[in-house]
């Protein structure tokens, strides 16, 4: 009896692979499984191998793993590429139409099933993936009713005939599997019956942004961030907000700067190439002290790189990008739920500290689908902080044109006024300026303004660093972003082997929360920094600002694929010696 199983479908892009995966994920989520769905796709529209992996469990799952119980193959390439991941005793359900062959060495069972043929017989030749769902239901011992329900939900609008065709397709697949596999299937523990929503990280982030009051979104399409714009353009108008697809990323970020100056909560979302184009404007927001939220859904760089592959390699640019020296905050969500919550922090911090906040997401977090608990997204838990906005009263005493927008305060934070509010007029500028915003090159003023801007961030509290695991770990795993789930599973596996391992997850990457890290780094004998990049950017950041050279080790991956728990476990064992 499995309490966890994994399924995969593979075929050519444009063949409905994505919708197959979505259907299964939804059905499973409705039955009370915790589900994680991960797509592998490439930068082309039709053709080319693609796969969708659904992992389901009676416990929360936060990452894909390598073991597949059932592989649905729409072509031979899928068997060749993905077959080796099928567990011993697992099933490969392959469309007879391409005459599937098991390559030598695979211990899986081949179910040679006429998906195309059965679909045709159902009256709907496109229902191949529904036939596959039927076979899936058999192999994983799933009830068919939830599939029926979903079919009705999806195709009900198209009329009873279409529904009936799909149901026939589903059942024919089930029957075929039943007749041919003859009981060779997995028994799985039932889900808890609670239906949970299953969403992409990009959507959770979009919802978080809306909920946090974002009403202006300007962006330029780019994989894997476009979802955010596309989701918001459908939803924001319901809340009076607006989304503009701009002519490029420079226009996108500067539109947000304008909106931020005017007092709206505005954001843009992009990936590496767009983020690079935004560097100059980033410095403007920092210098003119304009709140701004940028989501960077990282993908494999450099340059155009591999647009559909994951990486966490923009960290250094997030922290050190743009010329000169200017404050910014970098936050990284490491769970789907936090993809939602972190947007509140992003907008709150941007407003309070009047500076750009960069949310470091990545392709895996962005385009993976995961179930979340309804209660996990709870608006009563969030705060709403808009920072020091001078209202009419505060401005009443100001002499015309003399509002000190950039007054040199102890905290470094100065009051800001919003266009439309009387007496608050000032000049916001990226040129070095006097407290009024007017241009000056006075050396003392220069130092005062530089120090003021830098000082702002020194009052930042609570980086949100989380710790899991042993009290006195032999090895400390340090992670951020989407690797969280894989690292946790690795830690648990090591724990199960009796190893003392801890796991520290950064949430605020910049300013580096040294106070939160230090006790753990001090205690640990060795530290393994896990990151999806080739140079160990987080590790270097820690070295630069905190030292610990001798303790720090790296677990790096940069072939475009996410870390699997086992890989981290192996590397950890290697480091522990």
């Amino acid at each position, binding site marked *: 009896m499995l309490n966890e199983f994994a399924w995969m479908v593979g075929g050519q892009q444009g063949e409905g692979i994505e919708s197959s995966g979505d259907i299964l994920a*939804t059905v499973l*989520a*409705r039955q009370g499984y915790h589900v994680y769905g991960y797509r592998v796709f490439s930068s082309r529209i039709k053709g080319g191998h693609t796969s969708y992996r659904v992992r389901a469990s009676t416990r929360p799952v936060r990452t894909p793993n390598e073991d597949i119980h059932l592989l649905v193959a729409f072509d031979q390439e899928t068997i060749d590429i993905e077959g080796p991941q099928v567990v011993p005793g697992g099933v490969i359900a392959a469309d007879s139409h391409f005459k599937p062959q098991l390559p030598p060495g695979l211990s899986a069972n081949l179910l040679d099933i006429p998906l195309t043929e059965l679909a045709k017989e159902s009256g709907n030749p496109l229902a191949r993936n529904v036939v596959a769902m039927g076979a899936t239901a058999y192999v994983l011992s799933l009830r068919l009713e939830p599939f029926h329900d979903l079919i009705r939900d999806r195709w009900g609008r198209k009329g009873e005939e279409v529904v009936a065709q799909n149901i026939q397709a589903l059942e024919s697949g089930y029957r075929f599997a039943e007749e041919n596999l003859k009981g060779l299937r997995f028994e799985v523990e039932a889900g808890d019956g609670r*239906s949970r*929503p*299953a*969403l992409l990280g990009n*959507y959770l982030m979009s*919802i978080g942004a*809306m*909920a*946090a*009051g974002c*009403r*202006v979104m*300007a962006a330029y399409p780019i994989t894997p961030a476009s979802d955010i714009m596309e989701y918001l353009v459908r939803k924001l*108008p*319901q*809340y*009076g*907000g*607006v989304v*503009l697809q*701009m*002519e*490029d990323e420079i*226009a996108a970020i*500067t*539109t*947000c*700067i*304008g*909106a*931020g*100056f*005017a007092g*709206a909560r*505005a954001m843009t979302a992009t990936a590496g190439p767009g983020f690079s184009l935004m560097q*100059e*404007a980033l410095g*403007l927001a920092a210098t*003119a002290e304009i709140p701004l939220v940028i989501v960077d859904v990282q993908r494999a760089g450099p340059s155009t790189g591999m647009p559909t592959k994951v990486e966490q390699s923009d960290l250094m640019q997030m922290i050190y990008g743009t010329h000169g020296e200017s404050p910014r905050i970098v936050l990284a969500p490491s769970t789907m739920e936090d993809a939602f919550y972190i947007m509140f922090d992003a907008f709150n911090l941007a407003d309070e500290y009047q500076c750009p906040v960069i949310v470091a997401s990545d392709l895996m977090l962005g385009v993976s689908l995961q179930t979340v608990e*309804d209660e996990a*997204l709870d*608006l009563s838990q969030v705060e*709403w902080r808009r920072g020091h906005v001078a209202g009419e009263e505060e401005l009443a005493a100001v002499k*015309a*044109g003399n509002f000190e927008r950039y007054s040199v305060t102890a905290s470094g934070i100065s009051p800001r006024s*919003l*266009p*439309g*509010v*009387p*007496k*608050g*007029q000032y*000049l916001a*500028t*990226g*040129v070095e300026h006097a407290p009024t915003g007017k241009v000056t090159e006075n050396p003392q003023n220069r130092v005062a303004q530089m120090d003021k801007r830098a000082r702002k961030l020194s009052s930042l509290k609570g980086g949100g660093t989380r710790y899991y695991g042993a009290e006195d770990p032999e090895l400390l795993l340090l992670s951020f972003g989407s690797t969280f789930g894989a690292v946790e599973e690795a830690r648990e596996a090591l724990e199960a082997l009796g190893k003392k391992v801890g796991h520290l997850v950064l949430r605020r990457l910049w300013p580096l929360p040294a106070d939160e890290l230090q006790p753990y780094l001090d205690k640990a004998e060795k530290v393994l920094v896990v990151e999806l990049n080739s140079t160990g950017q987080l590790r270097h950041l820690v070295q630069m600002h905190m030292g610990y050279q001798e303790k720090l080790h790296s677990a790096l991956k940069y072939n475009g694929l996410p870390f699997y728990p086992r890989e981290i476990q192996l590397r950890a064992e290697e480091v522990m010696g």
Partner: protein
Amino acid sequence: MAITVTMADYRTAEKSWWCPGCGDFGVLSALQKTLVDLQRLPHEVAIIAGIGCSGKIGNYINCYNIHTTHGRTLPVATGIKLANRDLTVIAAGGDGDGYAIGMGHFMHALRRNVDMTYLVMDNHVYGLTKGQVSPTSDAGFITSSTPQGNLEKPVRPLELALASGVGFVAQGFSGWVPQLIEILKAAIEYRGFALVNVISPCVTYNKVNTYDYYREALTKVEDIPGYDEKDRLGALKTVMEREGLVTGILYREEGPALEDLLPGFREEPIVSQDLRFRQEDLKALLEEHR
């Protein structure tokens, strides 16, 4: 409660960094006078300035000002207008700012048609960086970066704007402030994107396109018999034949601005709306993913 806005309201205490005689003085005073004539309150006006001598304008006019990075006035202005549609939004910059590094945004702002005025102080040269060629420099113009004369065809902003389909295209001359004021009034009152290219001589680095030169060369469209500001092709023809040396409102066509078309966009500015989400809203959104 009749508050009366006067010129004093639009002045600042800053000493000007412009050279004596710079065309931008004329533009500044025309703009101030326009705002006074329109009785707009300084805090309800946002000026978005670019980088250049022209971009310094924000130091000298008392309203909400933002000085962007070079060439980015138009998207910044777009963001401001979207966030607070009650503001009078005026983007202002130089010919280099708007037609070189800012060219992409210019062409797209023309077609996006957000309600704002774009005032370009066109001196056919880069002033602030000390006299290099600009996109509007005449062919053959000698500068520090074209010591043997400009080899490129000048950008013709009026023709491009007319060809782009935008609804308001005008040209003024900082030597003719009264006409400029009338143009600016119409531009600010126009609902949509209004281009006002202003010929604003640089007395330091452009010894060719001088006040005197323009006083001779320019024709007001009012003085062209039969000129019809509703005829796009006719306007294009006039501008082409006269090589851009015309002032006045060249083309005007009423039509909705982007804000009037945006789905769900409210009369009340975004910045004044209650932005809080309710748990029900959230629930409804999650429901779609079940």
